[in-house]
């Protein structure tokens, strides 16, 4: 009986959770991440995903010559110290937000400019949770946001 109840609740969530999760991730990105991108202008593309502990992801992004950019990696606290690295297309590491294992201060943004349009690989790594009291996987929202600087770079509304 109890098992049936769990299954019913579970199935209910199965249909409700995706929509809620999507909206939650967008809301998290808007409240917690977008403000940190200023004065750079967000591209407007929604780049938010749910990731699990231990997950790794890699994305290749194109940056336009003559532009200045900010990459902001913004993760929900429950995911822990999420690392991100920027590599060139030959896989040379150009930037990492954790210098070594003892580095406790993780930067979450990186500002740079490119003289010519080129692609970079962005790697994201969610740490595996340690000392867990349960076997439920931790998941949370991650946003990888790119902002660019225009000549007049936005300073706010009137």
């Amino acid at each position, binding site marked *: 009986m109890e*098992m049936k109840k*769990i*299954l019913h609740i*579970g199935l209910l*969530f*199965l249909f409700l959770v*995706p*929509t809620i*999760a*999507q909206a939650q*991730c*967008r809301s998290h990105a808007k409240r917690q991440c977008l403000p940190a991108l200023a004065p750079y*202008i*967000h*591209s*407007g*593309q*929604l*780049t938010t*995903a*749910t*990731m*699990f502990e*231990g*997950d*790794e*992801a*890699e*994305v*290749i*992004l*194109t940056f*336009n*010559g*003559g*532009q200045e950019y900010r990459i902001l990696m913004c993760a929900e606290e429950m995911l822990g110290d999420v690392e991100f690295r920027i590599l*060139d297309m030959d896989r040379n590491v*150009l930037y990492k937000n954790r210098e070594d294992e003892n580095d406790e201060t993780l930067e979450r943004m990186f*500002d*740079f*400019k*490119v*003289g*010519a*349009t*080129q*692609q970079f690989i962005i790697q994201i790594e969610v740490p595996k949770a340690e000392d867990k009291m349960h*076997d*439920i*996987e931790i*998941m949370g929202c991650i946003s990888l946001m790119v902002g*660019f600087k*225009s*000549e*007049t*770079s*936005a300073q*706010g*509304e*009137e």
Partner: protein
Amino acid sequence: MSRTLHLLLSGIALFGLWSCSGEESSDTLDATNPTNDTLSVEVLDRITKTQKIFYSIPSPIEMATLLKKTGARYDYTYLNDPVSSDAFNTTTKQALNLGIYGADLSYTSIYNESGESILYMKATRTLADKLNVSAAIDDRLAERIEQNIEIQDSMITLISEVYWNLDGYLKEGDRNYISALMVAGGWTEGLYLTTRLLDQSPQSPEVRTHLAEQKQALKNLVSLLEQYESEKNIAVTLSDMRSLDTIFDQVEVNLQASTPIKDPETGVTDFGGSNEIVMTDEVLNQIRVKTEEIRGRMIQQN
């Protein structure tokens, strides 16, 4: 019991991830976990789907910024007629033209043409309404836009917010292919405006370079659209983009990388670099003609 609960929660989480990530994608995404061989199918599936949410196609506002940087002068005759917005009656045309008007709105705003920006914002709202995403530009946001219409930097931020909302609402409504069409429309209009700049300066190296450098963005756009190949509404646009891609394949863009230098004062790292462009006048003309043809089909009323 515990195992059942765990499986159930994993199922819920995975389903959530699938929906959250949607199906939008780019060809530039690749699984990288060094231990891929040992990863379960479930984890690999997650990684792949997480990666699919990111696509690298310049937004209309960035395209407009880049156009202005070439030194081009403003010309409203290049733009799609905002009065036509009410005449698009199919979802495909509405989505494509939502992107096109978004690009035109970005163009007028970057050049601080507030009178025309109002018209393009109105056209954008009309199509958002038709596509049932009017919440993306609600009255409050519309009011902020009206109040800031003459303040260029605020307008750029607000347009970015409009684009973000539209993208978000379409994805949350599980209408990812409409979002992809909107992106395709916006990018095509940006490319079309770039080709029109050649009327002003036929040999401008900045314009030619900007045009050639769209080669990669086009590849990403084709990959994004291919995710929805089964949608009949995508077919014409995908076919158009593929034929344009075939022409762009004749363009060579060779990156000459340089050593990164970090400015200790600003903290900004300069990666420098330059691109050597190989593109004949004939290829350039083919791109121009094909772009005009595709854009013409997109803005043609039903």
